[in-house]
């Protein structure tokens, strides 16, 4: 891993189009500003892992399971409406 030391207000370049600036240091936290082209994903690492996992799981949807979700959804909405009516 390349290790660099930077001060507040200084930045570094990754390739020609990505710039990372150190904006603020508060105790153990560092605030970074990142300029990158729109096709580059910039994300907290732990969020990226969660998102990958969630998207991958979501892509395995089975059509008959979606149809069951549709009927459960309709049933829930009907029950909610009945409960609303009971309030009168």
């Amino acid at each position: 891993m390349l290790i660099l030391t930077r001060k507040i207000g200084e930045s570094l370049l990754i390739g020609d189009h990505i710039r990372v600036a150190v904006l603020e240091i508060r105790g153990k936290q560092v605030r970074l500003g990142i300029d990158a082209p729109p096709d580059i994903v910039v994300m907290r690492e732990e969020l990226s892992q969660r998102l990958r996992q969630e998207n991958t799981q979501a892509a395995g949807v089975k059509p008959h399971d979606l149809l069951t979700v549709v009927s459960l959804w309709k049933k829930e909405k009907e029950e909610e409406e009945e409960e609303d009516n009971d309030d009168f």
Partner: protein
Amino acid sequence: MTSDSRRSHPESAPRCLTYPFLGRISVRKEQIITFTPGLQGLGRFHRYVLIERPQEAPFLWLLSVAKPDLALAVMEPARLVADYQVQVSDALLKDLAARTPADLKVLVILTIPAGRPQEATANLLAPLLINLAAGRGKQVVLESQAYSQAHPLFPRLAGKEG
């Protein structure tokens, strides 16, 4: 092809795509939504179509154009959380070739565990923003910690699992 030239040829010839579970679907070029970057975890597939059919309402399909078995079930988040809000920056609007946030359709992806549809969840943390007119989309991660990546669709049913 630019979005302008796409708009000026609304009658482009439809192409038929065959999906293993939806059958043949005819797709016109201007229906294709390109996600830049692609959806995290779903590799190099960037082009999708949004299919709305009465039998699945209020849910929709987001189908990969290149990989017929890559399908996502999506829905409008406002149906789950009435006051759902996404902050859209000017840079994001520009990326999606939109003038105002109102040009964007907001959808969230469902995760439906196989055989356990009562445990279905919606990813409210990372919605899809889509400019249908320009055929551009992006999955964004909200900075707000208020929304879950796995918001239960049926909290009462999922609770019964115990």
